């Protein structure tokens, strides 16, 4: 489901009428199989570099919103051996998700940095945006230099405060992750405060950018992998599921809770913070009847004080149309005790074992189509199909019985061989179809309609190196 339903009902009816006269899109695909495949593969990515327990990862993305509001980012910490994988799902535009994907991993890097490194940042020897984190894979980097300067300054401030107050002690990864998330959200919220404009620290266009970021929102999930330690920090309804191979069976182990109204403890958490407001806050299973996730970056409409919001409305420099997307309801109805929303992540810690074969992180667009169990089965099947080598040759001296046993197993695996070699693409195709007619119909839905059928989908699958984990495991237990 999209976060906000802006398309009018009339549009939908018009579309349905028109649609009723044209051939069924599933029965009469409008795309050729080749076209479907090239669309599905457009954003696919596979990185086969082994790094610690991570053997490789693949990712893919399919847009529903235009432009797409999902983002993803990956990187290694330069100091240390940890890898980071993040999937972010924006709403109300892509600005916030873009900012979070640009900045969050660096914030984590700063939060993880030890004293010496923070000191080096403070005296200018290290650039916190470039020298702490090595990005891997394709990343959409922000090009607006003014904005980058603002962001960099915020990060530097974070580094300075971290050094002064509570730098990383090498132990509490969880705390570091929480502080990075919270700090980034705080920075997003404060950078857009009207006072910044009046203080003259930003020019107009740059300020508008920060506003766009702050008024849109994003949820996200970041995996922190170091040795056999796997931490998952999650905000909102992006999910991470671990594929565990146990006694020849595949098991889906969720490593995140979704923060939405389906989660009773989340609802309880919010109502506890805002006693007596319960009926006003959660309406139609949404925050103020508007927002699906109950934790998010940005979305200052639920974070700023009423005064700040009103102030913004009355600021003359801000053209009316910027705020007009919210209509007359910039301030939610019965907005009494903000903030109602924050970006504190729920962090789960999992010790990797050789049975843990892969981790799937994906935006809710995927989980709306496929259950975690189904996703794990699909990846496992795909893995199996992928692992069979094309040309089997029996070993010298093997008996026919042995050969036949190997071949029987291969037979099952060969059945799993999929059209797409990229696991994320395979999931994407399975989520939409998998039959050609269905995929074609999904991919040809017109723009105002497509959001009613599916959300943006972003999938990252991280494959673990069981040998590495086994090795670490033994050392660990010793």
């Amino acid at each position, binding site marked *: 489901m999209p976060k906000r339903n802006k398309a009018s009902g009339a549009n939908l009816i018009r579309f349905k009428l028109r649609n009723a006269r044209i051939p069924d899109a599933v029965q009469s695909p409008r795309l050729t199989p080749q076209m479907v495949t090239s669309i599905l593969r457009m954003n696919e990515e596979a990185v086969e570099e082994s790094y610690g327990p991570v053997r490789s990862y693949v990712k893919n993305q399919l847009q529903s919103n235009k432009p797409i509001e999902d983002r993803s980012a990956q990187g290694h910490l330069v100091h240390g051996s940890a890898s980071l994988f993040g999937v972010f799902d924006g709403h109300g535009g892509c600005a916030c998700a873009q900012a979070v994907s640009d900045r969050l991993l660096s914030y984590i890097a700063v939060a993880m940095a030890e004293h010496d490194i923070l000191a080096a940042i403070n005296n200018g020897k290290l650039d916190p945006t470039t020298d702490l984190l090595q990005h891997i894979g394709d990343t959409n980097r922000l090009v607006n230099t003014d904005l980058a300067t603002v962001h960099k300054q915020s990060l530097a401030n974070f580094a300075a405060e971290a050094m002064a107050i509570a730098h990383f002690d090498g132990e509490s990864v969880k705390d570091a992750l929480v502080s990075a998330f919270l700090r980034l959200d705080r920075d997003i919220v404060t950078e857009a405060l009207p006072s910044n404009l009046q203080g003259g620290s930003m020019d107009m266009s740059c300020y508008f950018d920060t506003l766009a970021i702050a008024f849109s929102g994003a949820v996200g999930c970041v995996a922190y992998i170091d040795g056999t330690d796997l931490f998952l920090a999650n905000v909102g309804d992006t999910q991470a599921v671990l594929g565990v191979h146990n006694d020849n069976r595949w098991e889906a182990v969720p490593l995140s809770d979704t923060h939405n109204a389906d989660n009773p403890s989340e609802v309880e958490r919010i109502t506890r913070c805002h006693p007596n407001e319960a009926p006003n806050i959660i309406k139609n299973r949404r925050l103020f009847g508007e927002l699906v996730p109950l934790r998010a970056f940005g979305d200052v409409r639920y974070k700023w004080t009423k005064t700040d919001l009103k102030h913004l409305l009355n600021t003359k420099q801000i053209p009316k149309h910027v705020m007009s997307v919210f209509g007359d309801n910039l301030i939610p109805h019965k907005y009494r005790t903000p903030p109602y929303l924050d970006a504190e992540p729920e962090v789960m810690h999992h010790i990797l074992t050789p049975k843990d074969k892969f981790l799937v992180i994906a935006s809710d667009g995927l989980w709306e189509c496929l259950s975690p169990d189904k996703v794990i089965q699909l990846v496992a099947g795909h893995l199996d199909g992928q692992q069979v080598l094309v*040309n*089997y*040759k*029996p070993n010298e*001296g*093997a*008996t*026919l*019985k042995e*050969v*036949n046993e190997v*071949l*029987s197993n*291969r*037979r099952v695996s*060969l059945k799993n061989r999929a059209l797409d070699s990229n696991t994320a693409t395979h999931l994407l195709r399975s989520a939409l179809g998998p039959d050609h007619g269905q995929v074609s119909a999904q991919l040809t839905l017109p723009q105002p309609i497509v959001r009613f059928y599916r959300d943006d989908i972003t999938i990252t699958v991280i494959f673990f190196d069981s040998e590495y984990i086994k090795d670490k495991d033994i050392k660990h237990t010793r």
Partner: protein
Amino acid sequence: MGTAGVKCLKITSPSIFSRRILPSTFRAAAPGYVKTRLFSTAEGDSPSPEPVSLATPPKPLPQQARVVVCGGGVVGLSVAYHLAERGWTDVVVLEQGKVTCGTTWHSVGLVSTMKATRTDMAMTRYSADLYKQWEAEGEGVGWKQCGSLNVARTLDRMIHLKRQHAVAKTMGVESQVVTPAEIQDICPVLRVDDLQGGLWIPGDGALTAPDVAMVFSRKAKAKGVQVIEDVGVEKVITENGRVSKVVTSAGNIKCEYFVNSAGLWSRELGKRTDPRRVNVPLHACEHYYLVTKPITGTNPLMPVIRDYDGYVYFREWNGGLLGGGFEPSPKPCFHQGPPDKFEFQLLQEDWDHFQVLLTEILHRVPAMETAEIRQLVNGPESFTPDSRWLLGETAEVANYFVATGMNSSGIAGAGGVGKQVADWIIDGRPSLNMWAYDIRRFIGHHNNKRFLRDRMQESFPATAVLKYPREEYTTGRKLRCSPLHTRQEVAGAVFGETMAYERAMYFKLDDDDSPENEDRRMWTYTKPMWFEAAQEEYWACKERVCLMDMSSFAKFELESASEEVVDFLQKLCSNDIDVDIGTIVHTGMQNKYGGFENDTTIARLDHNHFYMICPATQQSRAWTWLARHMPQDGSVHLRDVTSMFSGINIIGPHAQQLLADVSDISTSRSDFRPMSCKKIDVGSASGVWAMRLTHTGEDGFILYIPSEYALHVYDILMSAGKDYGVRNAGYYALRHLRIENFFAYWGLDLDDRTTPMECGRGYRVKFDKGDFIGKAALEQQRDHGVNKRFVHFQLEDYDVNLDLWPWGGEPIYRNGRNAGLTTTCGFGFALDSMVCLGFVRDFDDKGVEQILKNSNDFVMKDAKYEIDIAGTRFPAKPSIYTPKQNVTYVDPSFIPAPQKV
């Protein structure tokens, strides 16, 4: 040529092949090789480099030769050998690589005589006898008479084996039906607990295939045949539709005859015929077998095992075992044509593909589980659309012969095939009825590459998979459909295919899909599920009126400016076709031996304009026969109008009234005589040729309608016929009608070795009309007696619901002595008995046909008949005329019309 994508493996030694094609002289010079070990190449053997060839060193190509054979495989060499044996020694064999380098060299070398039909058996037995004789003469073909054991997992397979056994018995081929316990005794390594039984053929054996080719080559060369290697045929040039010249990589050879024995390359070679290409419909397919390292305790004389319910076969191989098979879902290869250079090469082996066979192999011979692999062999072989060999003269070019498409039984077939093709070239016809292998059984569409590739899914496994009588193919269907096809489909038609033409076999009854009919089978040895439907249609033809789609029949028009066409047809036909305009004549077209080249119905439309209808299977063959005999001056025009006209047969007692209702003409017998034709209007359609005849003996009309009007005519007849109880009928009804009525059909009962005198059609031969082809032979038979006589049998003590059915090919016993085989069989609903048609012969003790001076007496006097169905002999009542049927025709007015829906 798309050779880039083809993965080929050059054999590297040591392999099982490296020594298989050494010349015997080389063997003598290499002491230490025991003959049976010769092909073993145990690990310690010195690797042999390139195979050494037997052929003569390069010498200049002859300028001309009587026969040029393209292909130095076992088949091409056998043809050359047999030509030389009969004194035709001016023969050149051209091989693009080295002798045997295509597929012969990787042949497993099984020689089985137990085949589907008597002709198959006759040919393979000839091969086996020849190879055995050579081995006895010291020619060294590695012959090992180990016998073969065909085992059955299912009862149906057992019936199949028993049917083969019954036929083998009539030919003196020794075989024995054995129980699982006996199988265990004969071959202790087999698992037998899941077997129903088997057939033991002690005279079968295995040999070394390339050696056979070498002996053919050596013996042919000794008689003067030239075998030239490293010369490829680039083009075959024809003049006036005959072979004139072969263009090779080393120069041109003028020749009279050309034989395409190019195996995998045959189809491509056929295309390189100038100016008109020759269709050689075959496709390559991967064929796998596995050879193990020696297994202790393996009996060197272990029989060849065929466990075809598991798709696999076995033979002993140098102390180890060889197991291969014909799996379903095979892998066709060389779709773009084989590479030019593919000598002593195999394809990349696909173990995963082989797994299905490996499981079956290990299942049947558990002892192989601990064996180690010597090699998995993936050798391409060529297969034809119906899994039968491609032999004989092509329809496109005179004197262009083919002997190819061996469907993985090249060694077993080579001897017999070589002999038949050599006879065919020299005598103008083979010594056996070769119609089943005759390349003219195909039409152009069969050469379609995609069709061929699709059909591989059925024709490759056909060697192993049990094919029931009349079972239809499922691939390559719906190619040629009549305009009535969709109407029939809606009416519940179940289609069969002849020459790719879809024909309704029967129309489903309402309760055909009901649960109590669930167990009944379309393809079976017993009463099939279409029986009741065919019965209904049969009675509708007998008592009411039916419409049958006859569009698949081959149709020709012949015309000339003046009398030429009459003279031409008079020469070809044994009946007198110089009849009144509007008259129809049934006539045979005889060859010089009096046999039926064609059996046709000819209507004289005008003085010099004839319309000719032939069986669908004759489309290529009839054309060829007509075209080859046409006056050279081009005065006679021949047109194939098969696709132009659709045929609807209105059959049954109400046909006369029904046609009158829709055509505004009088159809009374006096106004529209039987065996006459008129051009009439039907409904609003014009230009319909109506002929008062049926092919079953009932009254009725066949309408030949310009195809675009066919649907209109059909709809008009259907609606007008409502009150007459009109319905659709299919070919099963037709077949039952005509078998009961003792109507012989060409291709099923009649062939080019059957004369009109032998099938009771002497009355259609007009000796006094002047000369015609075959006249002398028929006069000879008229005056001195015939070789065989066509007889109508009714089985007695036979239960159509319970007993196994006869399907054609069952042995006929006269006073306990074999007298031939049945041709076609079907239930006679009016006679209420199973009817078998077949030819009765008088064989002497050596199995040679005796002349029947008085065939009527021989058949009918002092003769008790039995027909052997899978080992059970049923008494049979003979008749040489159509027996009287106990059918009373009710006055049409009293037959209730079917209820309205």
